[in-house]
Every structure is written in C-alpha cells, then in structure tokens.
C-alpha cells in the first residue's frame, strides 16, 4: 500500500490525471463518431514528429542544466540545414540525410557557444536559455530575408528574394521516413514504420551514450557537481557536451518533423517548439534534474496523444474549439508543477 502511495507521489498526481484523461478520451472517441484507428495513427505520427525534441531534453537535464528552453537554437541549425538541402535540390534519401548532415555542423557550433554561455550563468540557465532562444529565432528571421537563397519554390514570388514562411518539401524529402516500410490498414490507419524506427534508433544511441564513460560523468555532474569535480571531472566540459548534444538532436528533430509535416516552417515558427518539448518530457515523469528514456517515450506519447485527441473528441462533443485552451492549460500547468516541485537531488 505504502509502496503504491510512494510511487504515486513520485509520479505525481498531475501526470496520473492526464493519463486517465487521455484514456477517457480514447474511450469516449467512438461515441462522438471519432474513428479510433484514424486517431491512433494520428497520435503515432505526431509522436514520431516530436519524439526527438523531447529526447533532446535528456542530456541537459541529466547534466544539471535544467530544461532546455533554448532548444530553438538547435531547431534553427536544423532549418539552415534543411533549407540548404532544398536549395541544392537534393531529393528523397539525399534530401533527408543531406539536410541532417548539413545541419549538424551548425548545430555543433551553435551548441558549443550556447553551452559556453550557459556555463557562465549557472543557476539562471533556464530564463537565459529562453531568451537566447528567442533572440536567435528573431535574428534568423532577418537572415531568412536577406540570405541569398534562390530556389524558386523557396522564395517569395513577388519580391524575388527572401524565403517564404512555409516552404513545401513536396518532391524533396516529404514523408521520406513516414513512407519507409509504412504499413497501411484500411484507408485511415497508417503505421509510419520508418519514422518510428529512426526515433527508436536515436533513443537507443542516447541510451548507449548514457552508458559510456562520458555519459556516466555527465550524469554524475548533474547529480552532484562537487563529487564529479573531486573525481577529476570538469563540470563545465560535461555541461557543454550535454548542450551540444541537445542542440544537435534539436536540429535532427526539426528535419524529421518537416519530412512528416511536409513543410519547412521558418521565421517565428520555432518560438514555441521548445515549450511543447519541455511540457512533454515533464508529463513523461521527468523532474527538472532527472530524466530517463522512459520519461521521453511516455511523455511524448501522452502529450501528443492529448494534443490529437482533445480537438477531435472535445470539440465534437462540446461543438466548440475549446481544445486549444485545454492544451495551453495542461502543458503550461505541468511545467509550473515541475518548476515549483522541491528538486529531488539531495545535497
């Protein structure tokens, strides 16, 4: 009995409530004529789209840098990569992996600086990360306008220069992963095998990394910097590594997102993405300073499930678009809950 109580307190009521809520949604779905199979494949799809962003939270949380509100830095790198790939007219496999490969160097460089910065401001990481992210996005907004891209599908027709807000990647690498070995059942259920495989693989690599010497050191730094230091591990170096890693994952994440969504979204689009990812991993049961693969998978699934099901179910029951509000309240509520929770690390 106590054990269960303990488990519940660890897991946290909000998460349990959300979970129950989601289950109810699925139960309710048929009664309001929402196709379960459609919903499920929808959830799977969004899960795949966002999982990498959520995964990107893990290294920084583990290294004690808190929640990466500055994920947009990585996303920007990803956008640069993908736009370049389109610019060079790479298609299908080349397009996708081209985008990934092109974006990684940017991600590494950005991440390195970003990490150095965060090391200078220990304790204030989250607030600063957020604003560094915002500033970065805004800076790129200017860049998107003046960089000399000229792919006809990419730039504003009338101005003849400046990238569009949304660039279609139809004919480049749209659904490259989604359609890879995709399983279709009926006409409304699609299992995006390729994407989920890719996500699984990424998660596996992360799992491996956490078991290497460096990964171990990284976790130790997050758990007790002084202990790590006394054992000859440089906390700053580990933190930087974690930030770089997170940024790279963010970059790859956006490319995966695009290939499934079908468009490259530029300008202010990346502003909100970090928050969704943060909310997701917290819903998955992570705290501000401990996160695991399980948190990632559970979180991404719960959160995306919520985002998909609430509109379809709630709206069709209440005949209103209230789901948007539900989502704002839930996702921000969970973040606040995590922030106000006594940090679990005993010092």
């Amino acid at each position: 009995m106590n054990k269960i109580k303990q488990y519940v307190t660890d897991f946290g009521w909000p998460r349990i409530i959300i979970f129950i809520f989601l289950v109810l949604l699925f139960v309710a779905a048929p009664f309001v004529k929402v196709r379960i199979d459609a919903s499920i494949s929808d959830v799977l799809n969004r899960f795949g789209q966002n999982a990498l962003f959520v995964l990107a939270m893990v290294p920084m949380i583990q290294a004690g840098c808190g929640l990466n509100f500055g994920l947009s830095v990585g996303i920007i790198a990803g956008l640069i990569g993908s736009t370049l790939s389109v610019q060079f007219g790479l298609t299908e496999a080349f397009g996708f992996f081209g985008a990934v490969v092109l974006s990684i160097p940017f991600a590494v460089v950005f991440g390195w600086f970003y990490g150095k910065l965060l090391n200078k401001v220990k304790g204030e990481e989250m607030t600063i990360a957020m604003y560094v992210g915002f500033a970065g996005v805004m800076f790129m907004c200017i860049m998107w306008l003046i960089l000399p891209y000229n792919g006809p599908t990419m730039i504003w027709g009338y101005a003849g220069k400046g990238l569009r807000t949304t660039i279609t990647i139809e004919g480049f690498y749209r659904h490259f992963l989604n359609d890879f070995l995709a399983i279709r059942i009926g006409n409304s259920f699609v299992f995006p095998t390729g994407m989920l495989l890719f996500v699984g693989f990424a998660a596996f690599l992360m799992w491996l990394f956490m078991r290497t010497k460096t990964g171990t050191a990284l976790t130790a730094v997050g758990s007790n910097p002084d202990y790590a230091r006394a054992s000859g591990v440089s906390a700053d170096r580990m933190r930087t590594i974690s930030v770089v890693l997170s940024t790279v994952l963010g970059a790859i994440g956006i490319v995966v997102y695009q290939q499934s969504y079908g468009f490259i979204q530029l300008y202010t689009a990346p502003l909100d993405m970090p928050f969704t990812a943060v909310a997701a991993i917290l819903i998955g049961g992570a705290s501000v300073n401990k996160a695991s693969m399980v948190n990632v998978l559970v979180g991404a699934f719960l959160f995306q499930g919520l985002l998909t099901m609430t509109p379809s179910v709630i709206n069709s029951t209440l005949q209103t678009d209230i789901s948007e509000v539900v989502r704002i309240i839930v996702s921000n509520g969970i973040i606040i809950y995590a922030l106000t929770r006594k940090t679990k690390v005993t010092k």
Partner: protein
Amino acid sequence: MSDAVVKGKRSPRRLLVRLGLVAVYIFAVGLVFVLGKGHTLIVDNKDAADASYKADDGITVSIDRAEGLELYKGDRVLAKLKGQEHSVTVEKIDGEKKQYRIKLPLTEDLLILSVPKLMAGIEPAVEVFVNVQEAPKGDEVGNSNAFTSPGGDTGPAGEAPTQPPSP
C-alpha cells in the same frame, strides 16, 4: 524600538476604517457607473403617425452646451451622451430659443428623443429605441497560439501559420 509603534492589530478603529474602505469601494464603483454610463440618443424631428404633433422644419438642437445639431423636417441625428440628466436647447429659425430638461433611464443604451413631442410637451418625449440589432459578422477568433507566441506582433498579418494542421 519596535515597541514604539502603536500596536493596533485588532483595534476596533482599524476594523472600522477597513469596513469603511470596503463601503467606499462599492460606492465608488456605483458612482463612476452612474456618472460614466454612456447613452446613444437619437434626436428625431418627424411628424407623429397620428399627426398628434408636427415636426418643425429647420431647428437647431444643442445638448449640454455642445454645438448645435441642425435638423430639418424628418431628420434623425445621433448624439452620444454621458450621464442621465441633460439640458436640451431648441432654437427655431425665427430665433425663438427654448430649453428643456430630459432624464434618461440609467440602464438603457439606445434612446430616441422626439423634438416635436418635446416642444409640444407630450410625455414621454424620450423613449427606448426598439429595433433588432445583431452583432456585426466577420472577425472571428483568430490565433490563440499554443504558448501565446512572444512573436505575437511579428510578421505581416496572417503570414505565419497559426497552428500546424495535424497531417
């Protein structure tokens, strides 16, 4: 030392003052409501259907010393007023001036004042203006962005897609 301070935590005076404050608050709300209540007055210069009174052609109506509204026979003019008590001055072409006082009901927004009635002394000169008014169409709720994106006022209107449509 702190002992020097009047220790009056639970003093009845203090309680009274606070209660008084609440009263003042409520009073203030009421006051500004009454004083600030806006009314739209339709000043009208038409004959009565039953010809019980006749419109005067060419009058200047000025309310509360505002500059006058010119009304010819059959005219209707809108006047925005604040508060309930107003003085109406009607001036005929022949220069004959007359002042009247009108009182508007607090809770009504849209009223009509028939000047001929007023001049003929037929009560009530001011009546609630009845016509079905429905909300103008268009202009629905647009972007209530997930995290109320701080980029709110960026980008040319409608350029940034609000929500990614779930594929």
